[in-house]
């Protein structure tokens, strides 16, 4: 008697839980992303970017920004459980191979075909190609970004005489910092070297290829040793609080730092607030050219997306030329469709766009790409470079010894994942530091 009453209660509870699933899907989409994750960008995504879509379609979008770790765990867990709650997802190019390997994504080739069939947008072909992973179209290009230098105009008089800031070399940058230090007694160069900062990108994507011509292959080469000696000297003219900087726009606006290297989105707030005070310059060139990272973010649909049609609609909205211009203006991520690339921005954004163009079109420019194919161990790549920096520049250990030990870790990582070298390295698999 009692058991049957309990059983009927249980059935009721289960039914009550199942009812919303059985009826038409609620007009809401869940959109997870590692991009637009800083608080002010999340706020912008909710109140500006996604509001346009909500007003147009009546579908509410729940935007969830997260760090890469928990973000990937969630998608992988949903794939393994065979039940999903995430409808659309956006992250960096380098995260997709792992998601594909885990079977966490749908092929979005049909969505791409539909979008191209509208004839109102032309995706940049290289970016579409970057999205072809593991025999499927894993993502649709969403946004692009890069890293470069923003400088306060106050710093320009100290730039090495007779040299051109638009074609700066690493020696120029060091001399610049040194000139400022001698003239003012302060160190005014700044790098985002806090744990949440993106200094690691500077190491593997900028200075390493500029000095050695490679990100991984020449990790412990004589050129690399030279580069680390240079970095030690550069650290000597860098603001000694740099280890606290996550977003360079903050020390730039405070006047603590005059010359800062960072991600476009993390410099923009300074340019927006005082567009007349700053210039944006291409990253410096080393003996092996002016290396810079092209960062690609893509949009994918999880395999168990509860509402793939809604997801496709949101992707259509986000890659529309008008939305892409809105994104450029809002958070300084650059368009992935040609039709939006022609839009002429104003104010601080124009300063930024000019700098980005100057960097990409410099005669000695070399594009580096984020490493891919490191799967579950992707997270270890960047810290390996930052830890090398900590040991050499902060703890003052011997360069050759540190490089030898860290190169062993790098080699083990690439061998274990059987991953290919990231450009500009030659496409070897597994990649191996010489």
């Amino acid at each position: 008697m009692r058991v049957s009453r309990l059983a009927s209660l249980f059935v009721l509870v289960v039914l009550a839980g199942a009812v919303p699933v059985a009826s038409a899907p609620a007009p809401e989409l869940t959109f997870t992303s590692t991009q637009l994750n800083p608080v002010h960008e999340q706020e912008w995504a909710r109140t500006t970017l996604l509001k346009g879509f909500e007003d147009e379609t009546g579908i509410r979008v729940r935007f969830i920004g997260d760090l890469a770790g928990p973000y990937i765990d969630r998608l992988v867990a949903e794939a393994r459980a065979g039940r999903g709650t995430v409808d659309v997802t956006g992250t960096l190019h380098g995260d997709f191979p792992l998601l594909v390997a885990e079977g966490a994504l749908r092929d979005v080739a049909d969505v791409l075909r539909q979008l191209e069939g509208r004839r109102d947008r032309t995706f940049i072909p290289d970016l579409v190609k970057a999205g072809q992973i593991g025999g499927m179209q894993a993502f649709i290009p969403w946004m692009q970004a890069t890293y470069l230098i923003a400088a306060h105009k106050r710093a320009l008089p100290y730039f090495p005489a007779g040299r051109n800031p638009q074609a700066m070399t690493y020696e120029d940058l060091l001399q610049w910092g040194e000139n400022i230090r001698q003239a003012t007694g302060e160190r005014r160069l700044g790098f985002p070297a806090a744990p949440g900062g993106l200094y690691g990108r500077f190491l593997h994507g900028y200075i390493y290829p500029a000095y050695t011509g490679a990100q991984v292959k020449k990790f412990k080469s004589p050129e690399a040793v030279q580069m680390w000696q240079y970095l030690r000297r550069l650290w000597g003219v860098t603001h000694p609080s740099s280890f606290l900087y996550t977003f360079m726009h903050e020390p730039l606006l405070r006047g603590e730092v005059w010359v800062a290297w960072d991600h476009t989105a993390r410099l923009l707030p300074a340019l927006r607030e005082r567009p007349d005070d700053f210039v944006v310059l291409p990253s410096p060139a080393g003996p092996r050219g002016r290396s810079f990272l092209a960062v690609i973010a893509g949009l994918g649909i999880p395999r168990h997306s509860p509402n793939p049609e809604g997801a496709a609609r949101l992707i259509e909205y986000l890659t529309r030329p008008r939305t892409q211009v809105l994104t450029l203006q809002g958070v300084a991520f650059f368009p992935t469709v040609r039709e939006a690339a022609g839009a002429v921005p104003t104010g601080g954004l124009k300063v930024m766009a000019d700098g980005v163009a100057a960097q990409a079109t410099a005669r000695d420019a070399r594009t580096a790409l984020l490493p891919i194919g490191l799967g579950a161990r992707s997270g270890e790549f960047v810290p390996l470079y930052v830890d090398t920096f900590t040991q050499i520049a902060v703890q003052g250990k011997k360069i050759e010894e540190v490089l030898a030990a860290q190169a062993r870790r790098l080699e083990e990582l690439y061998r274990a994942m059987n991953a290919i070298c990231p450009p500009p390295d030659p496409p070897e698999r597994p990649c191996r530091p010489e």
Partner: protein
Amino acid sequence: MAFPRQAMTIAERRLERPGLQFVRLRIDWLPYLLLLPTVIFLSAFFVYPMLQALALSVRGPDGALTWRYFQAMVGDTYFIGAIRNSLLLTAIVIPLQVTLALTIALLVHSRFRGHTTFLYVAAIPLGISDLAAGLVWLSIFTERGYLNMLLQGLHLVPRPLTFLTFERPLLLYGAIVATEVWRATAIVMLILVAGLQLIPREFFETAEVFGATGWRKLRHVTLPLLRPVLQTALIIRTILAFQLFATVITLAGRIVPVLAGEAYFQYTIYRNPHVASAYAVLIMGTSMAVTVLYLRLLRTPEEVARA
């Protein structure tokens, strides 16, 4: 009955009195019933994740037992520094906090005019999260911060000083200690105030009758009677000190690595839950060891007599 009365349990004694069996059944279940929500909560949110973390730290992808995550932890660039800093910060901060908290608690206990207002003001940092506290003190210590503004306003320095620099770890330590003392002294103080209020007034009055002065009253009446409460405060504070993380990250980045911070970075930056769990297990082990140490060192006289 064959056995002496003292050996009987309460339930058996009740059995001797007919008519009370009904009551016995109801009363026996009540404590367990009341404990049940706590037990469920603790099992689901503490015991289970703790066991999971333990498993993550010693089990490889194939499920076999392995020490390699602990080896990876020990070989990590920041491991030695993290151990040293966690222990050192705990050793500096806790005595400062206890002394300061005891002083404030005694001050409040003296019931001077306005002591309640003072108590509330002194307890304010209790309501501020560690991250927020770190940010508050960061805005004081940066090159363009309040401290420099003050020093410059008073013409004590010609130009702003850089306090937070990797070149002077002592200053970094000082900033962290100042923040921690400001932020977490209040909890110790509140526990001690509560403890002081539990000491019956008669003890002090008796001491006065025998002519004890302020210092001797403190030494021979207050402190011994406060010992169990002090023990609790020390255990809580030390465990929390090993979990210290947000204030350190805010003020010193990873220049001053600490154990809890490394656990966090292993998970968020390196995406290695195994090594992160190894750090968590290490923190748990250290906290347990320190707790046992406190329990032994600060045993109250009755406990010593019983043991």
